[in-house]
Structures are given as C-alpha cells and as structure tokens.
C-alpha cells in the first residue's frame, strides 16, 4: 500500500476518533452542567427555606412575648418547629466554617419553646422572666435576619453561588474559595460569631447547657481508684460474668467520658470484648463485644437468661433491681432491670444485661444510666394528688389491673414521681403515668408483648 493511502486512512481514523471524543466530551460537559445546576439549586432551596424559617421565627417570637396563654401555646409550637427546621436547613449548606454555635442557638430555641409549651400544658403561665427572654430572642433574631438578608441579596441579585463551576477542569464540589469569593461563607461565619456573643438560654430541656455538665450522681460519694485497682476489679468482673478465660490485653483511660472510666480490652483465643470500670468507686460501667466459648448452661431459654442476669446483678451488689423489659433478637436476650425500693420503681436507675442464649454467657452489660441517675430523691413537701382521682381520670373503658408509685425522667434533666397505672384498653395493655404533683398525665406507654419479648414504648 502506498504511503499516501496509509496517511489517508490514518487521517480518517484520527478524524473519527477526534469527532467521537469531542462528542463524548460535550456530553460529559452537559451532564456536569446539569448536576451543577441541581446541586446549586438544592443548596439555594435550603438557604431560602432557612431565610423563611428566620422570618417566621422573628414574627412568632414577636407575638409570643405578649400573647395570652392559649395563643402562646400555639405560637410556641410553631416556634419549636421553625427553629428545628432552621437548624436542619442550615446544616445542609456547604460551609467550611464551623457554624455549630448557630446550630446550638436554633436547637436550644426549639427546645426552649417546647419547655414553655409543656409549662402551659401543666396549667402554668409564662413568667415575666420568660416573656423578657422571648423579647431578647426577638431582638436577636431581628439582627440575624438583617444580616442574612444581605446574603440573600448576594444570592438573589448578586449571583452569588454555593457551588463553584468556573472552568472545564474545576470540580463541582463546593469549595471554600467559591464561598469566599461570593462572601456567603464569610457572611455565615460573621453571623455565627454574633450568635456566639448571645447568652445561652437558661431553661431545663434536652439541649440545655446544664445537660452538658451532667455528672454521675450515683458515683459522687465514691473515692477514685488507681489504674492497678481498676485492673484488679476488671479481672474480678470478668470472673463474675463467666468470662474467666478472657485476659486483659490492653488498658486505657477514658477520663473525658461522661462517666470517667478505665477501659480494658480483654480477649481469649478468638474474640475480644471491651470493659469499663469507673474511676470513682471501681464499678463495672459497661461490658461489650463479641464473645466466644460457652457457659455452664448452653442453649438457654429466655427465662433461664433472666434468672442468670438477675443473679449476676446480685453478685455485683445490685440487690434491689427488678426486671422491666426483655427483648430477644438473633439468639440474644437484652434485659432491662430497674431499681425498686420502698414500693417505688425508679426507671431512670436502669441496667441493661445481654445474654447470648446459644453460649449461655453474658455478652453485654451497661450500668451507665444507673450511675448517672441513681441518687437520693426528695419528693416530699408537695401535696400528693389523690390516687383514686388519678385512676378515675382515665377513660371508663380502661380496665385497671394495678397501680404503684414510679419515678420517671422527663428526658430533659428532671424527674417526676408518678402513679404508674397499669391496665387494658381494647385488648392492649397500657401503662399510664400520672404526676403525683398536680395529677398531670406525664406519659402513656404501650406494653408490647411478642413471643418472649415484652417492652414498653
């Protein structure tokens, strides 16, 4: 074949290859543009939703500071929802700067509105202090809103983007550079700094600052032990749990944990478990991991596992625990024990014990809630609501089977002494908790029973 012919064939091949790659490149570029638009508009949607949340919050807090109780209850419910949504939308935005203080602000505002709403449902009024707080929040929101409106203008009018797509080679992932260029990132960082200057809300709730400083009440009166003493205690606990074949492989310290503990990784020839002993008092706080080997009784039934877990608790020195719930899954039984003393059940003082039914061994233990909450409680000094009145307040179709005193947590750092009224309604068992202080219905639980499992939810 002649040289010219070869060159001709090659030129055609090159031209086809070039055409195909250009076509493919164009398609890729188009797809990139579509993805870029989608991503940018998802962020813009979250941003505009956030601005809307702020606008509503400003309006709602403005009204709530001076409305009557009934209207306030409705407004507070809306504030709770709007503040929660503001936190969610803000977290979606692709900001490199730490905006955690802003998230704390909205989460606490939502939580604060819920606590006020709960007070209203108990028949209380919004105090003058709380009205003043709402007024402060209103003014704070006004400032945040004004600053955020400048960012909105940058996005809506100035063409500011959350995502960077300047060149063919640039990534469509949002970059810090893009935010700096447009000022969105620095704008949010400035607002976060302003919010950081606001005093945190003083209230009782799930997200309240006081919850962060919560310490183990049950361990307050115990002395600290040394690492060596903790290791000795850990070996003792392994024996009590029927894991005498396990040896301590490594030891550590989790001094910054909510309950400061000494930690131990323990193993046998096949598996390892982790065990934690409290720095104060040397109590077994947790045991968790995959176990191997077998106990004295293999292929346990759930009743035997309950008895085994109960005897372990007695060996560990917990003499006043009663079984509250059992959940079985994947041949493991998880039992929740709660403290019962003086005919009162203390639900916050709970311990979970997990038994591997096949192996007949303890495979999990968690007493952290027990040690965080267990303490001397004093509910005296308040007039007890009449028990018969509490029972009478329930629907007439609710067939009562029993009643006793119980302490329950409100999930926000406080506890209530309640009448636990157990009974049936429409064939299902419910446990209702009526506050002995005023007779408010605090909680209603459905007692679910399925096979060997029973638990309240």
């Amino acid at each position, binding site marked *: 074949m002649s*040289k010219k012919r*070869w060159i001709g064939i*090659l030129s055609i*091949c*090159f031209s086809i*290859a070039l055409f*195909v*790659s250009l076509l*493919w490149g164009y398609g*890729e570029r188009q797809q990139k543009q579509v993805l870029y638009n989608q991503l940018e508009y998802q962020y813009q949607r979250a941003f505009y939703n956030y601005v809307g949340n702020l606008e509503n919050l400003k309006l709602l807090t403005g009204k709530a500071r001076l409305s009557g109780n009934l209207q306030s209850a409705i407004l507070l419910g809306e504030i709770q929802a709007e503040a*929660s949504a503001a*936190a*969610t939308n803000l*977290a*979606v*935005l*692709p*900001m*490199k700067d*730490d905006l*955690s*203080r802003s*998230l*704390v602000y909205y*989460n*606490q505002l*939502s*939580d604060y509105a819920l606590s006020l709403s709960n007070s209203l449902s108990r028949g209380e009024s919004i105090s003058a202090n709380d009205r003043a707080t709402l007024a402060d929040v209103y003014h704070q929101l006004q400032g945040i809103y004004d600053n955020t409106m400048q960012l909105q203008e940058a996005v809506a009018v100035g063409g500011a983007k959350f995502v960077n797509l300047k060149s063919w080679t640039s990534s469509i*992932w*949002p970059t810090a550079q893009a935010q700096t260029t447009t000022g969105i990132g620095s704008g949010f960082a400035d607002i976060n700094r302003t919010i950081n200057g606001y005093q945190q809300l003083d209230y009782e709730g*799930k*997200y309240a600052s006081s919850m962060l400083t919560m310490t183990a009440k049950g361990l307050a009166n115990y002395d600290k032990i040394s690492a060596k003493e903790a290791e000795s205690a850990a070996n003792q606990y392994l024996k009590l749990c029927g894991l005498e074949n396990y040896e301590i492989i490594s030891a*550590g310290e*989790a001094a*910054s*944990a*909510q*309950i400061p*503990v000494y*930690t131990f990784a323990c193993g046998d020839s096949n598996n*390892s*478990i*982790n065990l*934690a002993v409290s720095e104060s008092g040397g109590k077994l706080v*947790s045991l*968790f*991991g*995959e176990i191997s080997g077998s106990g004295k009784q293999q292929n346990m039934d759930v009743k035997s596992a309950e008895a085994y877990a109960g005897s372990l608790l007695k060996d560990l020195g917990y003499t006043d625990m009663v079984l509250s719930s059992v*959940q079985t*899954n*994947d041949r493991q039984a*998880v039992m929740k024990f709660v403290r019962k003393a003086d005919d009162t059940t203390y639900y916050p003082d709970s311990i*979970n014990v997990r038994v591997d039914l096949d192996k007949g061994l303890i495979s*999990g233990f*968690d007493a*952290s809630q027990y040690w965080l909450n267990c303490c001397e409680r004093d509910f005296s000094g308040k007039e007890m609501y009449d028990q018969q009145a509490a029972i009478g307040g329930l629907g007439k179709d609710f067939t009562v089977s029993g009643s006793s005193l119980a302490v329950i947590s409100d999930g926000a750092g406080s506890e209530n002494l309640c009448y636990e009224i157990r009974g049936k309604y429409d064939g299902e068992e419910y446990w209702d908790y009526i506050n002995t202080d005023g007779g408010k219905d605090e909680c209603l639980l459905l007692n679910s029973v399925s096979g060997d499992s029973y638990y309240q939810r």
Partner: protein
Amino acid sequence: MSGNYHVIKGSIKLSKILLFIIIITIIASMVFANLQNQSVAALAQGSTGQQVKEVQQKLKDWGYYTGSVDGIYGSQTKAAVVKFQKYNGLTADGIVGSKTLAALGIASSSGVSSNTSSDAVLLAKVIYAESEAEPYTGKVAVGAVMLNRVDSSSFPNTLSGVIYQSYALESVSNGRYGTGTNAECLKAAQEAINGWDPSYGCLYFWNPATATSTWIWTRKVVVTYGKHVFGI
C-alpha cells in the same frame, strides 16, 4: 530506498499504535464513566471484611473452600468462588457480585430487609462506609457517635440531618456511603439504637492515619477501636 521504506514502515507502525491507544483511551473513559455511576459493591481478590467471612464460611460449609475463615479474599478464596460459580452456572470470574451472593444465600450488601427501620438502615450504611473493616465494637461505636450527635445541640436534630450534614462525614462526600451495607453493620446499627454506646458518649471519630483536618486533633480522645479513635 530501503532506508526510506523502513522509515515509512516504522511511522505507519507508530501511527497504528497511537491510533490503538487513542481508541482504547476513549472506550476506557466511557466505560469508566459508566462504572463510576454504578457504585456496585462487589467482592474480589483483595477485599476484606465481614462479608468476605460470610462467603468463606458458606463455601467452606459446602466443600468448595478449605482455607481459614479470616475475612481476607485471597487466591484460595478466589479459586473456591470460581469453582462454585462454574458448578452453579454463573459467570466464573471469581468476583462475588449480587448473583453469586444470592446463589450463596447471602443477602446482598445493598439488600436490606423491608422490616428494618429507616434509621437502622441509614445508620448501617454509615457504619459500613466508615468502619466496614473495623472490629464489631468499633462499628457499634460509630453508630453510637451518630446518635450522640442527634442528642447534641451542636448538630442537626435528626439522624438524616446528621448524616447528610455538609462536610460532616468523609464517606458521604466521596460516595462510599452509597455503596450499601451488610448484615453485621445492620446488627451494629440496631445495637446502637438500642442504647449500647462503646464510644462512651463521643461526638467524633477519625482515622489518625488518614485524617487531614488539623481541627480534629483539638478534640479530646476518649477511646480507640481498631484504626479509629473516638473523641468529644
């Protein structure tokens, strides 16, 4: 004359090679672009983890595999997989994809039981993406960290909000989060939801060998499981 002939022949040969490279490059780019979109989590030689263990155990139970069940997909495992695939009329490529997993009676990593709660599924996906090769306790600890964030005022107040928070999880940024999950991660997720917290209340975890953020080292380290440290 002869010299000219060799030069022309040589240049034609070179042009052919160049043309071949260009065409292969175009085809490879197109195939790679499509592969990236599929994000299928298949097991192949070099894979490690619990699902490899499950595959090895099944193959061992059925007599295809005689090696140790160590969770490492080596040449012996590959040979056993090929043998199993041939015997069961599957493509004998030594790669355990969804069809081979189904033939082995193992749930696909992306196959999640319909009665699993949405939170457990979300959590299991994070655990798989962030700590698939870690010990079981570490997996539960990763799940617990996510739930501790939900309970912390510094983070969004829902599990989906925490997981999809911008820049919060590397596995969400790099796409590994979307590759599926497995039975062990689902179990770990359920245990975290049931309240087990081997992280002792931590809000962060990171791999010291790969972490690029200097800020993360300002956190107080509480406990270490496998290659991950957990901090507050």
